């Protein structure tokens, strides 16, 4: 009897692992198909321009305050951290350089993306999820309007365009945050901080960070669209879709951060 139970138990574990693996592959397959459809529908970019503008407003303008707020503190933390790590090792003229490279390459793009994933990605998933469970997406279909071109592609374009824009703002504000710490708490002069920034500025750092943010914007929008449009089961389903969308984006942002870093900053 215990042996039999044991076998049953093991089988159910194997079965569960097998089933989840299949589900995972199916889900990824579906996500890639969606990405393909969105790319194809980019040819309707001018027809649906007003939707794109609306989504760009939502993506960019609505998250600007929270992005800037996070960025100023990010810059300040970077300042404190850099000052602490360099203490006694490196002359303080290097502080600006340390902060700026950390901000431009990593902190600006990645933290902006994570904040936006929580704000905009969740919003996209919740809105589309609600549209799905209340049959609004089916209604579009029956009116011979393609949901990919009408709903998903504009969000995709908004993500790809606005994430870099937000990142540029975040970078700037974070450098200001770093300057505040440098002057007020570390006690170096503004001139010294600026020199540090200027002498160690590499275009590649800035561009690399922005390239990252394009990918992050695409990840956030696609994940929101994918989880939103796959929503099933009423209000509870919408909640799940929202959570899944944020978790998926956050993980993918970190993975792609590594991949792109390894590719650009060799």
């Amino acid at each position, binding site marked *: 009897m215990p042996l039999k139970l044991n076998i049953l138990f093991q089988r159910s574990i194997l079965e569960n692992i097998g089933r989840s693996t299949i589900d995972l592959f199916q889900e990824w397959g579906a996500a890639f198909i969606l990405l393909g459809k969105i790319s194809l529908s980019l040819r309707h970019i001018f027809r649906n321009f007003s939707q794109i503008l609306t989504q760009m407003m939502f993506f960019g303008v609505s998250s600007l305050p929270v992005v800037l707020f996070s960025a100023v503190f990010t810059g300040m933390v970077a300042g404190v951290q850099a000052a602490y790590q360099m203490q006694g090792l490196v002359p303080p003229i290097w502080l600006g350089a340390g902060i700026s490279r950390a901000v431009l390459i990593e902190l600006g793009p990645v933290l902006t993306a994570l904040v936006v994933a929580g704000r905009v990605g969740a919003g996209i998933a919740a809105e589309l999820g609600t549209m799905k469970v*209340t049959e609004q997406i*089916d209604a*579009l279909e*029956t009116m*011979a*309007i393609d949901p990919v071109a009408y709903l998903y592609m504009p969000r995709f374009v908004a993500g790809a365009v606005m994430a870099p824009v937000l990142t540029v703002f975040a970078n700037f504000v974070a450098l200001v945050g770093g300057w505040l710490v440098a002057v007020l708490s570390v006690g170096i002069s503004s001139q010294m901080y600026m020199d540090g920034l200027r002498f160690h500025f590499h275009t590649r750092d800035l561009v690399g960070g922005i390239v990252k943010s394009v990918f992050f914007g695409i990840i956030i929008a696609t994940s929101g669209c994918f989880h939103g449009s796959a929503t099933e089961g009423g209000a509870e389903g919408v909640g799940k879709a929202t959570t899944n969308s944020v978790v998926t984006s956050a993980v993918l942002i970190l993975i792609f951060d590594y991949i792109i870093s390894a590719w650009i900053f060799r």
Partner: protein
Amino acid sequence: MIDISNIYKSFNSKQVLAGVDLSINTGETMVIIGGSGCGKSVLLRHIIGLMQPDRGSVKIDGTDVSRINRKELFALRKRLGMLFQGAALFDSLTVAENVGLGLREHSEYSAEQISDIVNKKLEMVGMSGTGGLMPAELSGGMKKRVGLARAIAMDPEYILYDEPTTGLDPIMADKINDLIIALRSRMALTSIAVTHDMVSAAKIADRIAMLHQGKIIFCGTPEEIKRSPDERVQRFIKGEAD
């Protein structure tokens, strides 16, 4: 003419449709009745190509809905209108934008012409002057009427109703019934409604079909259904539990 022949559909291992045969003649109003969860909405979704049958076919004027490509399907759908159970109004658009969306996307009409058509359709459903409201500001019955205006905005030949009166008070339900009858005579529509509301069915139908355990077990006029010897049909129209 819509010809549904021998369609099967199952979800996971659950057989929902198991050989449905039904044809709807041009110009008639066919009402499909059946208990909750028996597959009425699934059947409607097959007609408009939102779902594909596992087996069998749905032909609209000879075109097999599940065998055509997306472009052809979209062309076909422009000749069909559908009223969803919860109206499915786009909640980010105003009433007027909801009704005019199809025209804006598919026609060459100017904004003024579209606005005129929208006002006319809203008037037909008794919702004049509500164009500027958002769907969230409407009651259930008003949503259904706007949904109806949206469904007829492109002057379709066919219209599908998913439970048009469910969830409405009897007076509002009767108004919707009257609207369905009025629209039909005004626009020469072929209509298919699914419902579990027998009062509504008896009032609007030329013919009634009953869906039960995945099959059509009865099809006839409202007079004939009253005289049907089938016990399952009698129980349903009298509202008796078994």
